[in-house]
């Protein structure tokens, strides 16, 4: 149904005086995917979002959302998106329900049964004043506000802040459901575990530059992971030396830990001759590692 990319930026650049907040960003978010936008604080994530939402204007370049120009067709775009700003602020003197009513009136066509479902799923209290809510409970109101119109694109800036783990899991399920319906999610975050769990693809931004865009599965496959072997009797580290992809071997009597990059079958095949293996534990490839690797690479090339 939706053919245009959800978001498409071309050479998007934003300067604040002498500060280059965003440098020639070329980014495409496809319809029907959850796109994780990763970067440390101050990398330019929020600037990107504020620029494509027409809150601030690009110094150069342009962006399209759902096929429409983000400046010229801004109002039409906003009819079809939901937004959770970073460091969310709302009207403290309104209750959650008043807040949602206000935005629903500005937007039109909100299904209140669906709002009720969302509130149940997130365990949100809509009868308290927003100003009396804890930050996590306030965040829930913000999330419902973004989801309630069933937008074609959700743009969310650090949306999980303050949510407890149970609610976070529910929220992640909600994002996956959006993608399953062919709608899109643009999720800015600095918490990798979350992006790892929900995103199809990840863009990594640093000091205003987009330094990589990768599918999460791909990243994971070609990333190093830590593997731990438990043997029935003491072994030497030399057992693993010379195997392709193995580095950083540490042997502690019956226990061997190593880093491995490649298909796990090749490694298992190489040690299959040793019949005293009691246990194998692999630690899942961590985006944290990848993330840091990318940053290290950037620093070296810089």
């Amino acid at each position, binding site marked *: 149904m939706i053919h245009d990319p959800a978001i498409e930026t071309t050479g998007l650049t934003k300067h604040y005086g002498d500060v280059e907040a965003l440098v020639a960003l070329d980014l495409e978010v496809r319809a029907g995917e959850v796109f994780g936008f990763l970067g440390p604080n101050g990398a330019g994530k*929020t600037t990107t979002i504020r620029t494509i939402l027409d809150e601030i204007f690009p110094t150069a370049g342009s962006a399209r959302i759902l096929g429409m120009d983000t400046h010229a067709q801004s109002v039409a775009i906003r009819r079809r998106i939901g937004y959770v700003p970073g460091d969310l602020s709302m*009207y403290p003197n309104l209750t959650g329900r008043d807040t949602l009513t206000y935005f629903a009136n500005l937007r039109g066509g909100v299904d209140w049964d669906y709002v009720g479902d969302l509130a149940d799923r997130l365990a949100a209290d809509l009868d308290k004043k927003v*100003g009396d809510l804890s930050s996590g409970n306030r965040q829930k109101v913000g999330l419902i506000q973004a989801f309630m119109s069933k937008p074609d694109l959700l743009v969310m800036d650090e949306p999980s802040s303050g949510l407890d783990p149970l609610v976070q899991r529910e929220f992640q399920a909600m994002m996956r459901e959006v993608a399953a319906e062919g709608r899109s999610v643009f999720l800015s975050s600095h918490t990798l575990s979350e992006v790892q769990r929900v995103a199809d693809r990840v863009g990594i931004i640093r000091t205003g530059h987009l330094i990589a865009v990768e599918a999460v599965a791909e990243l994971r496959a070609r990333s190093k992971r830590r593997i731990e072997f438990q043997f029935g009797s003491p072994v030497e580290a030399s057992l693993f030396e010379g195997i392709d992809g193995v580095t950083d071997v540490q042997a502690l009597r019956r226990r061997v830990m190593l880093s491995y990059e490649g298909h796990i079958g090749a490694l298992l095949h190489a040690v299959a001759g040793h019949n005293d293996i009691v246990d194998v534990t692999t630690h899942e490839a961590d985006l944290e590692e990848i993330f840091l690797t990318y940053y290290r690479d950037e620093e070296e090339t810089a």
Partner: protein
Amino acid sequence: MMLANVYTKTILDRWKGMAIAAGGMALMLWFAMAAYNGIDTDFFDRMPEFWRALANIPEGGGVTGLAYSAMFASYGALAVGSLALSMGAASIAGEERDGTIGLLLANPVSRVRVLLSKLGSLVTVVAGGVLVLWGAAYLVPVLVGTDTGGMDIAALMVHLVVVSVFFGAMAMAIGAWTGNRGLASGATAGVMVVSFIVTGLLPLVSGWESVPKAFPWYYYDAAEPLINGIGWFHLSVLLAGIVVLLALAVIGVRRRDLEEHSVAVTMLDRLRANPRTRKIMEKVAGSARVSGITAKAVSDHQTLMIVVSYVMVLMALFIGPFYRLVDDMLVDFAKQFPDAILSMVGFADLTTPEGWYQTEVFSLSLPIAFLAVTLTMGAKALAGEEADRTMGLLLSNPVSRSRVVLGKAAAMVGVVLVVAFLTFAGTIGGSLIANLGMGYWNVAATSLLGMMLALVFGALALAIGAATGRVKTAVYGSAGVALTAYVANVYFPLSDSLAGFAKWSPFYYFLAGDPLNQGMNWVHFGVLAGLAALCFAAAVPLFQRRDLRQTG
């Protein structure tokens, strides 16, 4: 005993407001003295007692006494007192509202020490502002080539510091007991204004002369410190009051649960929670309030609207019967007023009910009240949402920036229209009670012109907010222009060469056509409406072309 960092931070947060208020007063003193200078001072000896009481002019004060009193004894003192009470109200309750009190008290400091440090900064800021006024009181006469007229300025200034600290301590005590900053500043401001009015008016009514002694303002200037020096008895009454209020504040702040980032509970909230009134209140406080940008903006300023309307209605109602109490005196003395004074009230004829109303209600109180509404709403309309960081969320909805600007502008028009209508109704009520027979259409026309005048500056505040995204810039910018325009309209007509320039001031188009007697001057109405429309229209592109601010 005081915490140096709390003390210093509070001063740094507050000194600008005081500096601007004191500087503005100094400037007005300069304008006033320049205008009064050279006027024959004989008329003071013939000034009626009631007029001097109203204007707070000490007997035998001469030109300088008139200028000092007009600036320092009434409006200047109210301004300094307002800043003091706003600091007092913010001292504990303000930190609770901002949610910073927990952080502050996580440090090894007691609540009482925090309170005393806040008191210390309050006294310092008040004293600093008063010092500026004091300096101006000596400097301005030199600048305009007159002298201080032997007035005891130091005594007046000491009285001013003490009365301001008194109201600051009162707000502090209410805030310490309730944790509600709005209540603390609102109630204290109410006491201050009521006692100011009572102290000015009741001495004129026979049999009521001693009633003002029950009000704090009496002890500020009833002893006439400009003439008689420091009134030690009156001062000690205020000082004793300060001690009592501070003791109450200390007790209150120690025994109460502190609020964490509280939101004030309004009357509507209570009605909404009550089962009997819930149904209708859900509509008023809930769905109706959030039905759109305009409705929400109106509701956000409901307290301001109610308070200002209340003050205007009361004033308009009571001024009528007062005319009946004093009209005999008026007829005898009105002829003796010099242009300098008549100019301040738009050359009203005090012997007529219309002139009396113009002097007491329309010439100054009405612009102040209406401008309080429009400047607040205009400055907060766009810049306020940016400072509160809600503008991004609002604009993520399918509403254009121009619709936001116009929606907020409509709210300003709506609220000031309500205030103007109630002012009109109050005036008609006062006229009916006292049987003054004022023309309905003329009163309506004057209220409408006042509304348009306020809209000019409100629209200017909105446009400055649209261009800068800064609430303070919008408030100070538009208030500065309004003050200059007011002063120009009052003082330019006194000089033949400058009289023509008064027409450059929007204030000119408010009362120059004598609407209370002559009815609506549609040309003047059109000028004001055009200026307001121009500023509203300018706000749209200014807002559309700017990056939204991310933080306040």
